[in-house]
């Protein structure tokens, strides 16, 4: 049985019942429970003061102590100055009456002869399916229930206040887009909760249509501001038109801030994914067409000390499908309500003025000669939107406050000796001493701070105290023995639905991936550093010229472009920046445009290169898989699953050690990265379906390049490969 079903849904469910008025029993029991228990969490409160720098705690510390009083308090958020107030249902009416929808309906009717009435009915149905129903009632109910529930499991919710005053002012003058990172189901509720708490207008939120079908929950979410977008609607012109007009209507009139997730979906691997531009470009169109003076975009980084979905994510990454969102699923996830989930940090970054951002690059007057409803983004607008999206993701990352546990996870995952037994294995068998671990954590924390990472590190405590605190939060994964040794816990009760992975492999992989999730949260800080480190530590020469280093750095950036967020135009800036940083911290030694290899292979570079090694190994296996299978065309699914099978076999034979390479998301990024590098080519098959073509020459070049930087099985093992390959694949092909 898979345990972690997102518990956020549990709360929703509870609320849904309440609002729908049926079976109040559970809800009342819950509330009663809450009211009786003063909260198991308080124990470690000293780590979570009311104020930390610019961060303020909003869950446990508020002026109004009673939750009822707080959720019913007078709430008067700023409102957009040109907003003409309307009910949620009026948004739909306005959308249906808008020129773009009328135009699209007529056009479609001319194109395929369907009747205007039928299309209008269809449009009405879509709007009904989509529409939000934001009301203060639901918000206040959430404010109350979530306060109760969260106090049980969270030590603190911190919100940074430095940009809040400015943001409150901006909400009066301009439409605002809230763009949070998306790493948990919780983000959604959390954002509305935080907005309510800090007196910002509660946003309307684009949500995936998956929630819609949940009994009772769908309508409750609508009431708290969600509007639903189908996951796929590629060529449905009417749907597309209604979706864009719906978003734009909200932006134009500034009814409420519009919140959506740039990455499109939750990042299960816990590192930013490439942006999806549909929603952003729709939301920015009113600016391009001069319908609003400006739009402010607010990148928000949300981080959780412990994820509600941690194990679930690990399974999903390994290919066990996520359970469908259902109300009964919610009930089963109730047990999540107990336990310690540490802190949450919500970091608002400086709001970005779209006008200032686009000022130089975009000429809006090109829209002057067409009626406004005729949507057409100019080439410059598309390019600038793309660039803005990447910037927002980078800002989110920058804003994110990391948990000390990320450091621990990164260290536990490290292999002490290539080919030898890793700490992960050791810590399962003989454990790691707390003192040893604390020392490592302290060292990594220094590195992190040197390279611009933000970490939740309460002042006045020893590293060991902080370490112990974070180990307690993650007692599901680690245990501390009486001899002060840290042990990784077994994952038991593994039920693999993936034929390619046997239960033993699965168990190890789940444990590794769960750690990797937390490690991934800090990778963005070191992404450039890691690439340089890979080149330096892999070098066989005595020295590397900066030119060669740059070339290899470029190669890695291109290859890993889907796994990490880079600004393509900033390669040189990033390169020089990270070199400077590394020189200052003595991570590399440079002499006359050359890096001296021997002194540059040190703790820092070795640690960093090992942190990024698994990615390259996965890419390498994927190359090998494609090189050994001669097929005219591929489906992406076949490549990924085949590679995963190959990896599993190689892991079982002890040829590889990084179980996290089994992640399907990683492999999918690898395929796309190789497409980006030109080693795989996108084609259209005869039947019109997209297919992929492997290019052996380029693939082997990439594989050789990777092999020059990280340890991969040697050529002697080549014969073994074929044997191994035959096992899982013959079964499939």
């Amino acid at each position, binding site marked *: 049985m898979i345990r972690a079903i997102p518990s956020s849904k549990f709360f929703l469910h509870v609320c849904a019942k309440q609002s729908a008025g049926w079976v109040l029993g559970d809800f009342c029991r819950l509330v009663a429970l809450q009211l009786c228990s003063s909260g198991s969490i308080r124990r470690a409160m000293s780590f979570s003061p009311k104020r930390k720098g610019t961060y303020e705690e909003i869950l446990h510390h508020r002026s109004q102590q009673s939750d009822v009083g707080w959720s019913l308090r007078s709430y008067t958020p700023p409102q957009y100055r040109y907003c003409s107030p309307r009910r949620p249902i009026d948004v739909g009416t306005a959308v249906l009456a808008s020129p773009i929808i009328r135009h699209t309906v007529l056009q479609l009717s001319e194109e395929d002869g369907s009747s205007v009435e039928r299309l209008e009915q269809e449009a009405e149905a879509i709007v009904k399916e989509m529409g939000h129903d934001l009301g203060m009632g639901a918000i206040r109910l959430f404010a109350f229930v979530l306060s109760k529930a969260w106090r049980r499991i969270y030590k603190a919710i911190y919100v940074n206040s430095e940009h809040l005053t400015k943001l409150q002012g901006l909400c009066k*003058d301009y439409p605002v887009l809230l763009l949070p990172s998306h790493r948990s189901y919780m983000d959604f509720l959390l954002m509305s909760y935080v907005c309510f708490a800090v007196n910002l207008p509660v946003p309307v939120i684009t949500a995936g249509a998956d929630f819609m079908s949940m009994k009772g929950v769908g309508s409750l979410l609508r009431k708290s501001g969600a509007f639903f977008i189908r996951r796929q609607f590629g060529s449905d012109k009417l749907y597309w038109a209604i979706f864009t007009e719906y978003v734009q209507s909200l932006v134009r009139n500034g009814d409420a801030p519009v919140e959506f997730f740039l990455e499109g979906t939750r990042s299960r691997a816990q590192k930013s994914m490439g942006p999806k531009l549909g929603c952003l470009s729709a939301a920015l169109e009113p600016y391009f067409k*001069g319908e*609003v*003076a400006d739009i402010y975009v607010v990148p928000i980084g949300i981080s959780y000390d412990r994820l509600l979905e941690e194990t679930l994510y690990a399974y999903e990454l390994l290919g066990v499908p996520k359970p469908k969102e259902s109300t009964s699923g919610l009930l089963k996830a109730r047990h999540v309500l107990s336990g310690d989930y540490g802190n949450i940090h919500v970091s608002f970054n400086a709001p970005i003025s779209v*006008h200032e951002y686009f000022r130089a690059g975009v000429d*809006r*007057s090109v829209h*002057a000669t067409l009626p*406004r409803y005729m949507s057409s983004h100019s080439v410059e607008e598309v390019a600038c939107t793309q660039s803005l999206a990447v910037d927002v993701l980078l800002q989110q990352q920058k804003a994110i406050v990391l948990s000390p546990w990320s450091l621990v996870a990164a260290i536990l995952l490290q292999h002490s000796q290539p080919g030898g037994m890793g700490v992960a294995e050791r810590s399962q068998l003989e454990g790691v001493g707390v003192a040893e671990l604390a020392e490592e954590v302290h060292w990594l924390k220094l590195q992190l701070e040197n390279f611009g990472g933000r970490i939740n590190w309460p002042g006045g405590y020893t590293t060991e105290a902080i370490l112990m605190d974070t180990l307690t939060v993650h007692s599901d994964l680690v245990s501390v023995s009486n001899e002060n040794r840290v042990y990784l816990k077994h994952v038991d009760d593994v039920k693999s639905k993936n034929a390619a992975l046997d239960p033993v492999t699965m168990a190890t992989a789940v444990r590794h991936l769960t750690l990797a999730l937390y490690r991934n949260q800090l990778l963005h800080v070191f992404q450039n550093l890691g690439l340089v480190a890979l080149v330096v530590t892999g070098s066989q020469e005595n020295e590397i010229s900066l030119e060669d280093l740059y070339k290899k750095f470029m190669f890695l950036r291109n290859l890993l472009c889907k796994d990490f967020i880079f600004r393509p135009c900033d390669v040189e800036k990033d390169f020089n920046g990270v070199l400077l940083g590394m020189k200052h911290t003595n991570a590399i030694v440079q002499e006359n445009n050359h890096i001296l290899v021997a002194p540059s292979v040190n703790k820092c570079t070795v640690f960093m290169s090992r942190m990024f090694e698994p990615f390259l190994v996965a890419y390498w296996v994927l190359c090998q898989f494609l090189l050994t299978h001669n097929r005219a065309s591929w489906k992406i699914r076949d490549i990924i699953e085949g590679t995963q099978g190959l990896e599993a076999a190689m892991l079982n034979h002890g040829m590889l050690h990084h179980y996290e390479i089994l992640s399907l998301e990683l492999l999918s990024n690898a395929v796309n990265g190789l497409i980006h590098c030109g080693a795989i080519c996108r084609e259209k098959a005869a039947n019109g379906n997209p297919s992929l073509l492997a290019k052996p020459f380029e693939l082997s070049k990439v594989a050789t390049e990777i092999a020059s930087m990280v340890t991969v099985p040697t050529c002697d093992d080549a014969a073994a490969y074929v044997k191994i390959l035959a096992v899982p694949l013959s079964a499939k092909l």
Partner: protein
Amino acid sequence: MVLPLLKDWMLNNFNVNLDYVRPAQPEFSAADLPSPVINKPFLEDLQTSGLEHSLDCHDRLFRAHGHTLNEIWALREGSFNRIPDLVAWPTSQVEVMQMVQLANKHNVVIIPFGGGTSVTQALECPSTETRMIISLDTSQMHKILWLDEENLTACLESGVTGKEIEQRLASRGFCLGHEPDSYEFSTLGGWVATRASGMKKNIYGNIEDLVVLVRTVTTRGLLEKSCNAPRTSSGPDLHHAILGSEGTLGVVTEVVVKIRPLPECQKYGSVVFPCFQDGVSCLREVARQRCAPASIRLVDNEQFVFGQALKPENNSLVQSFLDGIKKAYLTRWKGFDINKMCVATLVFEGTLKEVEAQEKRVYETAGKFGGLPAGEENGERGYFLTYLIAYIRDMGLQYGIIAESFETSIPWDRVTDLCHNVKDRLRRECKAMGMQHEPFASCRVTQLYDAGACVYFYFAFCIRGLSDPVKAYEEIESAARDEILACGGSISHHHGIGKIRKKWLKQSISGVGVDVLQSIKRTLDPQNIFGNGNLFDAAVPISKL
């Protein structure tokens, strides 16, 4: 006249300190002005011809500027580095032809000068001009040459001002009906040269609708049509080459215009709306129904409040009591927000019956958009304000407040957004320049068309602490114009290009369009005698290189 409320308004809006004054500098003496460039053979020929002219420095200075902010600033606190070298006052078309021939012969520049009310730096002498510059003042050509009651046309000389025209036509029972805000000073020739627009264009039309025939003296001779027929199809209308040419092609000397019998009745009116958007919707509906009265203007809340501040001193207790009731009725009873409401001012013209019918229709339409009739007095004050504003600007400068206006035209669906965006841009740019206090940014919709409207912006800010206020102003206005174009507005509705908007001409009419204008210029004025440098930089003839 005493405006008791104005002081408070200024204090509130600009945070000015009335002790802080920037007095104008003493009048320029000859020594302060650039000495004239003299083309001797030309001067000798001119003296022989007996045409009236002057080299006096004040005559020259007076014609060196219009009413653009930087020109007024130069008069008050700055200096001029190029002014006309000689002023000539021809009294007839024949004398203009003589002048132009002389100039052409001696390669001397002519800048035609009418009422001097340009707000686009169109009268500014190009500082790089090394030839002698003559300011050709048309003020002595102010006769009504004839009046044709049967065809309702009149032939006027180009130097006659709007006020004179109306006075003289009125004495014979007619009117022209062209009333730009500057009509006290601006001249018929200037209107033609800038494509002027009059307040009452809904009845009488803009200048291009009013002219039947235009005579223009060019260096190649007289450009004119052969008859006073109301419309012809004879290739592209050459009147349109002259309309808006801004003195770059020749001197407009005589114009045959349409006239109308004086209206039996003229009446002001006004309507208050709960918010600007409602007002715009109402104007759009009026335009859709084509039932606009002679003039209809919608001013935004900022200007409405400003208008209230310009109420003259009120001695009667009864009057102020009534004002109080009116305000209470609107805000308490009707739910108007004093910080959002705005007002439309109206002028009705026609027979008594027509005016009555118009009033009814307009007020009915306004009612559909929440508009309430607000009396004649408010309307009249609105129009009065238009004339007053230029004087108030000069007073503002005294206290360190810079004010200027600019305008555009735009399709109906973008009017409200344009107003919001441009005002926002003005505030934003001021903030970016480090101004402590928000500027006064206000707009009004002044003209209705079938496909759109003309929007007029007022903009004022306090210059204390700015090192170069005029440059700051120009940068802000330039940003505002960028915003206008981005919103889908035009480069200008009636002020023209002059020199301040040259940089947007190509974007506005395309490169090919500029080439067409260049080739007209080349044909009519190969030596660039009419070298005031407006619209675009004339391509220098190859032979000169």
